[in-house]
């Protein structure tokens, strides 16, 4: 090493671009993180408006607002955009911004690869939106895209193929990002920082990156097969050619269930920062939290067929997957109780971030409980493909991931931008989202029990009142989204400035390095290499 060190020439001062060129050529993990967040923000509007179109069509049982064909496109693209182009990139954005800072690094291990990961999201996103303008319209087989529905026979045209291609390309971006996160955290921690000193947001990103690394390639593989079935006439999933559509479901959900944790674990990490910070207490049960994250990660690969209880799998398989799915409730419960214990007896400061954090706990627990119900085979068979499942998945994905994401954004916005968001507008945003969310998604449980099937553009007339109620509630969510957008855009330009490294005054209860550097951080993150002194209990 000593001889090698002598050969290292000092790095030249980085080239400096400004304006647009700066954003296009940046390899700074913080700017790339912001790009991811902006990308997610723009797509969230598209995905949200697709949902609005779906709700408008469901205003009456046999609406003529849009054709059922377009309804299927809207439904598919709403899910696709929200999952792959909003929640995933938004969490990657926050992770990109804060993981290197939290471990005391100057940047990611591979800064250019990091930039590549972001830019690799743009062409598939364009493909996705462009697919609306092809002859048969966009993909309409749902985000799960089961054959034979998504096969050449029932989904002709370029839309579905473009969908497959776009998801494969986004998968490349995800895998590159996962590699980068894992190497960064393994090799670039500040001196003195061991694995068990890492903040939980970093830990959640480690587990997420492992899930991405091992699950996303399976999706790429399975979509290559599907695309090949569609375009080259192969028979991977074509029953007539000896293929098996059920196998598609197995392979898809082998990716699809870890994907669920890819979308929720970063929110868990955010919760473990926000809750102790605004309770003015240290986090309860750090080791248990790490263990819980890791066991969720491992168990996440062993539960996939609980999405397929009605697809025709053997009773033994049903029992196995039901048991493992129920088991996941244990580490998840450990996390929820640890957050509650972190807040217990603390001096709770109801900042907007903390409101969203409590909103997260309330809604995610409901979603988690309905998940435990769905893990029980007889119950699942009764409500499978009904609105109960729609309610469940939105409680964990919207009530969980999005609420957690919002908590993170309100928590770190001053750090990222050096500006404060309006607290008044933030409170409006929270209450509109919280009440609007319960308004829209709670009644879906009842619709499910009553037997309203999901994904279908028509429904029986007796469901009309509740559907109208739900569609009206969408306006609350829309208003919340508008207020949030206004708050962010306005505060970016005119918000109150702050240069306090620790604007919330939380670093005395939380050892996380982002609060020890400048606000907003310099491109090189730390003026001096931070040396980590672990706090021993």
């Amino acid at each position: 090493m000593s001889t090698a060190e002598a050969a290292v020439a000092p790095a030249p001062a980085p080239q400096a671009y400004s304006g647009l060129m700066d954003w296009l050529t940046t390899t700074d993990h913080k700017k790339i993180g912001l790009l991811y967040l902006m990308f997610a923000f723009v797509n969230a509007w598209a995905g949200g408006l697709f949902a609005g179109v779906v709700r408008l069509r469901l205003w009456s049982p046999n609406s003529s607002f849009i054709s059922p064909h377009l309804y299927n496109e809207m439904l598919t693209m709403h899910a696709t955009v929200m999952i792959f182009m909003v929640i995933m990139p938004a969490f990657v954005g926050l992770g990109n911004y804060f993981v290197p800072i939290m471990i005391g690094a100057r940047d990611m291990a591979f800064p250019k690869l990091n930039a590549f990961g972001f830019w690799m999201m743009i062409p598939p996103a364009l493909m996705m939106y462009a697919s609306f303008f092809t002859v048969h319209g966009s993909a309409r087989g749902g985000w799960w895209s089961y054959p034979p529905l998504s096969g050449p026979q029932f989904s002709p045209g370029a839309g579905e193929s473009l969908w497959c291609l776009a998801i494969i390309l986004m998968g490349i971006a995800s895998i590159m990002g996962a590699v980068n996160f894992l190497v960064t955290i393994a090799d670039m921690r500040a001196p003195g920082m061991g694995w068990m000193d890492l903040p939980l947001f970093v830990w959640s990103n480690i587990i997420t990156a492992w899930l991405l690394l091992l699950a996303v390639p399976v999706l790429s593989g399975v979509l290559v097969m599907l695309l090949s079935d569609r375009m080259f006439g192969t028979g991977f999933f074509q029953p007539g050619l000896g293929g098996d559509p059920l196998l598609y479901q197995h392979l898809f959900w082998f990716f699809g269930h870890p994907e669920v944790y890819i979308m929720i674990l970063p929110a868990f990490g955010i919760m473990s920062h926000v809750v102790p910070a605004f309770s003015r207490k240290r986090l309860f049960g750090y080791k248990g939290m790490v263990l819980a994250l890791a066991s969720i990660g491992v168990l996440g690969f062993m539960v996939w067929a609980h999405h397929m209880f009605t697809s025709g799998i053997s009773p033994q398989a049903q029992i196995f997957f039901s048991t493992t799915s129920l088991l996941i409730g244990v580490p998840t419960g450990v996390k929820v109780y640890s957050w509650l214990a972190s807040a217990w007896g603390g001096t709770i400061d109801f900042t907007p971030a903390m409101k969203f954090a409590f909103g997260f706990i309330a809604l995610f627990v409901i979603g988690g409980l309905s998940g435990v119900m769905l893990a029980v085979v007889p119950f699942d068979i009764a409500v499978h493909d009904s609105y109960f499942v729609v309610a469940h998945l939105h409680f964990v994905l919207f009530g969980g991931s999005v609420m957690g994401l919002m908590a993170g954004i309100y928590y770190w916005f001053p750090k990222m931008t050096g500006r404060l968001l309006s607290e008044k507008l933030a409170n409006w945003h929270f209450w509109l989202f919280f009440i609007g969310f319960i308004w829209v998604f709670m009644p879906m449980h009842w619709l499910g029990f009553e037997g309203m099937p999901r994904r279908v553009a028509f429904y029986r007339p007796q469901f009309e009142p509740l559907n109208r109620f739900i569609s009206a509630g969408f306006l609350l969510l829309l208003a919340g989204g508008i207020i949030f957008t206004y708050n962010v855009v306005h505060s970016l330009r005119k918000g109150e400035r702050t240069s306090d490294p620790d604007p919330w005054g939380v670093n005395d209860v939380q050892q996380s390095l982002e609060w020890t550097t400048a606000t907003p951080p310099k491109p090189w993150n730390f003026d001096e290499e931070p040396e980590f002194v672990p706090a021993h209990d």
Partner: protein
Amino acid sequence: MNMDPTSTSFPAPHGAAAAAAAPGHAAHGDPSAHAPQPSGWPLLLAFGIGLFATSFFLLASGYHVMPLFYLSALICVLIPALGWATTIARERHHQDPVYTYKILRRGFFYFLLSEGAIFGSFFAHNIYLRYAHAKTWPPVGAPYLNPHLAAIGTLLLVFSSFTYHWCHQAFLKGKKALAKNWLLATIGLGIIFLGIQGYDWGTLKAFDKFTYQHGAFGSEFYWMTGFHGLHVCVGLLFLSLVYYRMETNQIDQTYNFSLTAAEYYWHFVDIVWVFLFFVIYLL
């Protein structure tokens, strides 16, 4: 964990001017030197790949577009890729080689894990169809896949892993001429392997009229061996690049990550083939 909210604060991290520098960060006076260098190549490469995928899509969908379009798409991938590689080669002299080697090796290893997962999805497909779906396997009407020729290919490919290992060892010991010979032997074995596979494909297509549209069995056979063959081609390009860099003295005992990366990749391609051979030809 200490639950007492009134306990003492966490010690604030302090600057470590006197402490040993963290791996990868030489201690310089001016912190702004630590800001990463901007680069336009990632953006250009991403859009090149997007364009390339689009042109592939148009071609496969049967749209007739000017050949110039495909050519320009390919150029849009190649130029940024070369530019990026050149930048990295230039920048390496400002980085600690031990540390750079360490992170690159780890990153490449993780990348290969994800590659393994892609192959895993194909293996899972094959195993599932064989044991959970089909009543008879190979399905009725499927041609006999001759394992003898493939076995020779397997032996050659396995041997090429050894020849590459000897190449690596020789290079690290400074025996460059020997290393180049072993490398040429590796490339030769890889080409012979591809030739054997090509011959196998050719006979299956010509005599058995067996194509990838021949049901799930044919799809699996051609996709699995084809996808692997694509990896062999990339591996051969990789090895040729290493040869070129040896020839032009771009790698030495300090900077030789491409040698290691090619080794990992080549062993990976080899191991995958052993499984493929077992699952497709023997099982």
